[in-house]
């Protein structure tokens, strides 16, 4: 992979980031709604208090002044103060990012492993009952709205069967005797949200893997390998799957956007204290600084993920060298 390509891709990523930054800023400012009035809509709140807070957040300045201040601060790592929590945005995000990462991370692992497995099995045994079953399961979970799946799972496993807690990340306010107990508690709470997200992703990964593997299997060099007398298993593992993985990498990276959508829904249904719910809450309350911070962070992650996928793809596949 040559340096020029690498450089070009990185520059593109930086440029996109910049565009996103600007877009990000204006997008939320155009939202109707006076954030402070919303937060302080309480008959006991005085007009002076609201005015003071407006000045504190610079909301009385002209728009270009606010814009300039925003960018200046951004360069020094200051993402501003959250309206709702009156704390630096980065603090608020930091306190909510781990639950999301844990849930999404585990779900991704499960989904990738199971999805690839299902896809391989379905493709290899194309046309048989196994294929049909695997494909059907994948298609059905792929077609389900994420939140609906969450509701159904809670309904069955929490409400009816009492197997799992209905919400949250841990039994609230409980003091734990040991860290093992703590992990057990979190694991119990993690189960349903993770399963929901995994199921949603498994469908997509399985179908992609299946299609990609089928593509590869019908290639000429596959026939060649078979003619040469290599065993099915060997072909599968040494040639087919590795080559079929390429589109998978792209999908996994690009999927970040879908995952965010899924996360917002899951965190809402399960009251999971993560970034998705934080984003939704800050949107409802017009907490611009927090909104901008989260949106920015998320978009940058997507850009980086895409960049890595791009580079990895071109590194692995010698054919792709634009």
């Amino acid at each position: 992979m040559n340096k020029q390509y690498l450089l070009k891709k990185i520059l593109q990523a930086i440029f996109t980031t910049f565009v996103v930054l600007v877009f990000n800023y204006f997008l939320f400012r155009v939202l109707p709604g006076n954030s402070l009035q919303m937060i302080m809509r309480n008959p006991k709140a005085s007009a002076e208090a609201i005015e003071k807070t407006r000045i504190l957040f610079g909301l009385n300045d002209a728009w270009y002044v606010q814009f300039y201040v925003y960018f200046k601060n951004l360069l020094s790592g200051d993402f501003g103060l959250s309206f709702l929590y009156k704390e630096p945005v980065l603090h608020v995000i930091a306190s909510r990012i781990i639950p999301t990462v844990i849930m999404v991370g585990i779900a991704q692992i499960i989904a990738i492993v199971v999805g690839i497995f299902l896809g391989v099995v379905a493709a290899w045994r194309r046309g048989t009952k196994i294929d049909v079953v695997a494909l059907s399961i994948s298609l059905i979970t792929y077609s389900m709205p994420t939140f609906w799946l969450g509701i159904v799972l809670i309904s069955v496993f929490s409400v009816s069967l009492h197997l799992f807690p209905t919400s949250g990340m841990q039994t609230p306010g409980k003091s734990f005797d040991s860290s093992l107990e703590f992990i057990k508690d979190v694991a119990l709470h993690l189960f349903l949200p993770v399963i929901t997200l995994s199921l949603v992703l498994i469908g997509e990964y399985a179908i992609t893997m299946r299609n990609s593997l089928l593509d590869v299997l019908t290639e000429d060099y596959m026939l060649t390998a078979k003619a040469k007398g290599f065993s099915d298993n060997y072909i599968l593992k040494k040639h087919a799957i590795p080559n079929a993985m390429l589109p998978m990498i792209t999908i996994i990276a690009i999927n970040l956007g879908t995952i965010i959508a899924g996360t917002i829904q899951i965190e809402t249904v399960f009251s999971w204290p993560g970034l998705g719910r934080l984003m939704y809450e800050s949107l409802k309350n017009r907490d611009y600084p927090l909104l901008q911070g989260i949106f920015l962070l998320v978009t940058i992650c997507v850009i980086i993920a895409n960049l890595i996928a791009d580079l990895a793809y071109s590194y692995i596949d010698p054919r792709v060298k634009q």
Partner: protein
Amino acid sequence: MKIKQKNFLVIILVVLMTFSMTMTASAEDVQKNSMRIGVTKEIDSLSPFISYSSMGFEAFMLLYNPLVGVDENLNSTPALATEWSLSDDQLVWTFKLRDDVKWSDGEPLTSDDVKFTYDLITKSGLGLYSGYLKGITSVDCPDDYTVVITTEEPKANMLLNSTPILPKHIWADVKEADLETWGNDTPVGTGPFKFGEYKKGEYLKLVVNEDYYGTKPSIDELVFVLYANTDVMTQALKLGEIDAATNMAPAQLEQLKGEKNIDAISGVGYGFTQLSFNSSNDPASKGNKLLLDKNIKKAIEFSMDKKKILDMVYGGQGTEGTTLVPPDGFYHYDPSADEMRAYDVKKANELLDSSGYKDSDGDGIREDKNGNKLSFVFSLRSENAQEDNAGQMIASMAKEVGINLNIELIDDGVLIDKIYSSDFDMFIWGWGTDLDPTTILAVMSTDQIGNLSDCNYSNKEYDNLLKVQQSKMDKNERQKVVWDMQKMIYEDAPYIILMYDNNLQAVKNDKWTNWKSIPQDGGYFFNLTNYNYLNVKPAGEAVSTQGGINTDSEKSNSGLIVLIAAIVLAVLYFVFKKKK
């Protein structure tokens, strides 16, 4: 492959991080009396200068004390002040403080703290309590345990003010400019509870104040748990994950009625839900001018079957609304039989007919003599499912009398914008009120237009009476003035009060007993007193903190096993692949 391995490593790292975090979880005495209360709105800040939430209000009642408190009959009772007296000219109050109160950091409470608190709140104008202190001209401390407060005019609500007294030795170091952002993350107070832990988005934990000067609560640990929706919270209550739930929906209350060990109540609350009409006299206002005719508004009220709405949408939990000040206090005005606008479709039609609104083109909607249709934009808050449903019912009822209400479901931000730019016709929202009627009466005053007023009502006579009632020290005299004010509002109808909200709460009585509704039919929590927090007793032996899921080793292991299995699977997969 490289990317996946990278992903995998990152995940492992995160898991390890979490693990190491948990190493710091300390072992604590399991035999503690803890109470977990489910709430749906979390506290926004631990600083009384920044918080504007009802949860904040409730928490400050537990962390701090005011000069004068409120007992279970909603009468004034000594708190930090043991006795008080008023001068003959009614302008000078003298409070005698307790001499045995300590701050949670050991420092003693003195009158300096009171003076400091009142001065600072008044000067900064921030927070929920600054309104209470209006009219105070000076606070003096002749000695360590006496406070003398002088007011400009007689101040009728002096004893109703719940302003928490803050420690001077902590807050004096906060620069005034920082008051708006200093979070008070580890509050120091004199209240029955001390600050324990605050996990944003999850819970607020308070612990009992062992050195409290008053009745020490039996609750060792008090946790307010935040739930994203009431459904999930009700499930948690049923499963024993929490011991009490607040702010529930009517459907959930119904569900709980049959459950044993759960007391579900529909307590009379401090608040109402109303229809607000754009009553602005300003010609530049974008609201539909037809609504300035109070006969239309009155007709809409006649067409509303409030009882049916209450029954269907609120499960019958609530009282049909009439005037501005809710009935659970001394100041509510009951309209006379002539004034009262009860459900009467005939009267609605008659009123509209006699006011000159007829349906001339037969489309079911009345017009005025210039052909303008009685068709209004009805904004409903998407955030509140009940207001949404109630609105749908109201629209359907208004249709019966020839008024067309076009529903739009919008979010709070959009609605607030519309209110401030006077670009609305009508909407549904609600207010929480107070023991002091001034709080809610003030919303209708002219100088709240552009601030708290959400109907743009302006009436000079009303404004005047607002000032008058604030200095009527005699309760009966004050009541008369407040009644006149409510009559005015009822007649001009900028609001139609749909209902007085009930507090839907439930508690598990197998863990804690001695619950009391306050006032008589009121709720257990969020009722302007901290009575229940101080007086509930554990049912039976000391209860452990082992609440929640069946901690059968079988069941709790299953979750862990799945987690391990997933990781093992992943590891196996990579190992398996590498071999070939």
